[in-house]
């Protein structure tokens, strides 16, 4: 009848290139690899340091955080500075909207201050889509986390880390452990892993922390961590929020660690060269044992470094797509004009 089974992808421009980054859902492999390859180019192969480049000189980026964040916001700011952009960061939960200014008025005001790109974090799922719908055509929106929906740059940096350590995401077995239900990071990770054709994606956790329809995400579900970790190449641990105990979804941190905590003994069930990831900040002794977090298989701190390169890549790819589109449109106008002139010179 009338149901639409696929939503249009509002984040691509007329040439099918990224205009906004709202979610990874609906993107093609080439969209992701372009970002990952670009990120690679920002890292000095000898020193592993991240270069400063003038790619976004003269561009104005505004970081709008409607929800508090330290790490994501800091890495975005560092990435923007490394791209030589002019930046402004606003904690909106403490300013305008508290005074009763509407969300859109805030956005339009900031847009009038000549922003080229908004990096937005918001507590409501779909907020990034909402903003992308209402910004001026030349303004780009980058989702830095919306509700429980998506956190695409975090997932991309995770893919980058996996690529660095494993060469490729293709054909790997990946287990994600913990609070899957409330995690926007996990939703984006799962999409990234399927786009890059991981062989198997497992989610491990109690039923109360899994979405009602995990099959809609294309994952295998395990309630038993020992079973779920068998022979995997990558283990991604998810942070457990305090609120989950308060809303009676799990009994206690202690019991959670007993049943789902990543210990050395459990890690041994995975492939011997398996890597351990965590989007941070970690809860030692809640979802992960210190010995594992600080152990040789952990890549948790490298993730943070790569996060800068990947966010630089996303922003530079989006801005270069915009430049390419502008050029394309100018060429089209020119050829249309040339045709018109030709017709005028050679009237039939």
């Amino acid at each position, binding site marked *: 009848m*009338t149901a639409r089974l696929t939503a249009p992808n509002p984040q691509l421009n007329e040439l099918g290139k990224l205009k906004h980054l709202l979610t990874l859902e609906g993107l093609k492999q080439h969209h992701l690899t372009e970002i990952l390859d670009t990120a690679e180019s920002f890292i000095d192969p000898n020193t592993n340091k991240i270069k400063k480049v003038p790619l976004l000189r003269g561009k104005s980026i505004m970081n709008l955080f409607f929800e508090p964040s330290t790490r994501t916001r800091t890495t975005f700011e560092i990435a923007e500075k490394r791209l030589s952009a002019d930046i402004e960061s606003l904690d909106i939960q403490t300013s305008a909207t508290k005074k009763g200014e509407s969300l859109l008025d805030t956005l339009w005001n900031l847009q009038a201050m000549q922003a080229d790109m908004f990096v937005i974090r918001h507590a409501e799922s779909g907020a990034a*889509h909402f903003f992308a719908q209402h910004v001026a055509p030349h303004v780009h929106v980058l989702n830095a986390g919306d509700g*429980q929906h998506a956190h695409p740059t975090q997932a991309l940096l995770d893919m980058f880390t996996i690529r660095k350590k494993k060469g490729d995401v293709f054909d790997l077995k990946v287990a994600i452990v913990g609070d899957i239900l409330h995690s926007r990071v996990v939703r984006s990770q799962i999409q990234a892993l399927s786009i890059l054709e991981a062989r198997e994606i497992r989610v491990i956790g109690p039923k109360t922390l899994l979405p009602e329809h995990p099959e809609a995400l294309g994952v295998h579900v395990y309630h038993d961590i020992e079973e779920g970790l068998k022979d995997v190449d990558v283990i991604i641990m998810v942070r457990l929020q305090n609120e989950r105990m308060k809303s009676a979804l799990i009994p206690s941190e202690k019991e959670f660690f007993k049943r789902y905590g990543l210990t050395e003994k459990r890690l041994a069930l995975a492939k011997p060269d398996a890597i351990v990831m965590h989007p941070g900040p970690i809860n030692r002794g809640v979802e992960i044992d210190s010995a594992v977090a600080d152990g040789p298989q952990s890549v948790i701190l490298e993730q943070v470094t790569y996060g800068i390169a990947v966010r630089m890549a996303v922003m530079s790819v989006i801005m270069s797509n915009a430049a390419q589109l502008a050029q394309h449109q100018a060429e089209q106008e020119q050829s249309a004009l040339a045709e018109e002139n030709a017709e005028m010179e050679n009237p039939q």
Partner: protein
Amino acid sequence: MRLAILNARVIDPSQDLDKVTNIYMARGRIAEIGDEAPEGFSADQEIDATGKWVVPGLVDLQARLGEPGSIFAGSIASETRAAVAGGVTTICCPPDTNPVNDTQAVTELIQRRARQAATAYVMPIGALTQGLEGKLLSGIYSLIEGGCVALSQANRPVQSALTLKNALEYTASLDTVVMLRCEDQDLKNNGVAHDGPVASRLGLPPITPAAETSALARDLVLVEESGIRAHFSQLSCARSVEMIAEAKKRGLPVTCDVAIHQLLLSEMDVLSFNSLFHVSPPLRSLRDRDALLAGVRSGVIDAIVSDHTPLHRDDKLLPFGESQPGIIGLETLLPLVLKLVQEGQLDITTAIKAVTQTPAEILQIPTGSLQTSRPADLAIIDPEGIWTFDKDSIISEGKNSPFIGWEFIGKVEQTFFQGRPVYKNNEV
């Protein structure tokens, strides 16, 4: 004024009528339906309705009219105009006004405004509890005496089982019907979308079907114990239809309705985070939608309502979860019902019955029928008129419709209320 509508296909389920004939109206009432005029009848005006359909004016069990108060957009005048443009001539307005319709004074205010507008019957529904807070009983007898046709809690179901039990038992001795929306607020939690694959994918806080079904189970038990006549409003789940079917089979005096958008939309429509699809109860799975349609076909679901909720523009200009739930429906109720008929989902008699005869019978009011001496409320439809529902043509003060841009076949040409023309297409 004596009026004759000639050569129309008259569809009136209340008298098993579906044939081409004439309608004669006098003094605001139906004088007769038949090929010959009643004796001594001479029409002041004749309308040739060859090729057109005539149906009783629709009876809508739930439509918010925006008055009193400013929570919703619109006024009784504006929304009744929207109603008759959609062929709706009897509107029941839920008590979630501001102030809440929990006293005779508010009921009388609504009635007065409706008399001034004079384009449709407005039937106020009184609040079961004071302020709809679910704690203290309203003056239920006074509300009925003042003209409320039913009692309800609108979208704020009584959470305390004891309070509801008392309210139902107190009301049972009065000859009225209680309308119940079933939703356990605890289970609903902070949910905004059906707990299905789409919410799982989009990370929207989910509303489990159990929020409706567990509340319905509780309410059915309390209804049975009190012996009251109960009507369940806006079902959304397949399981709820089964539960009502079972209750009816056991002889309980219960009826129920579904909002028209639940029969055409589903959770899939939420995929783009479009807040126009944010409604309460939420759009559920395709399976639920099919079960609701089957429920209408089998008669388990008695009525189809618009659940008309006109909202201010700013209330929808927000991310999905922060936006106000609600859809305007008065102007699209009949077009969407006809669409279901065209798609083969419902036969014409069942469809029209669910928006005319049955809702009127539930409230024991004399509208929704073209029988002799009933109010001459009717709509003339051009069954072949093709039109698009576009935003600029919306009469309601609320523009919050997900059906904007939909193409419809069959449009209301004229609406009569108490024998007077209250709407004529392209002339409003």
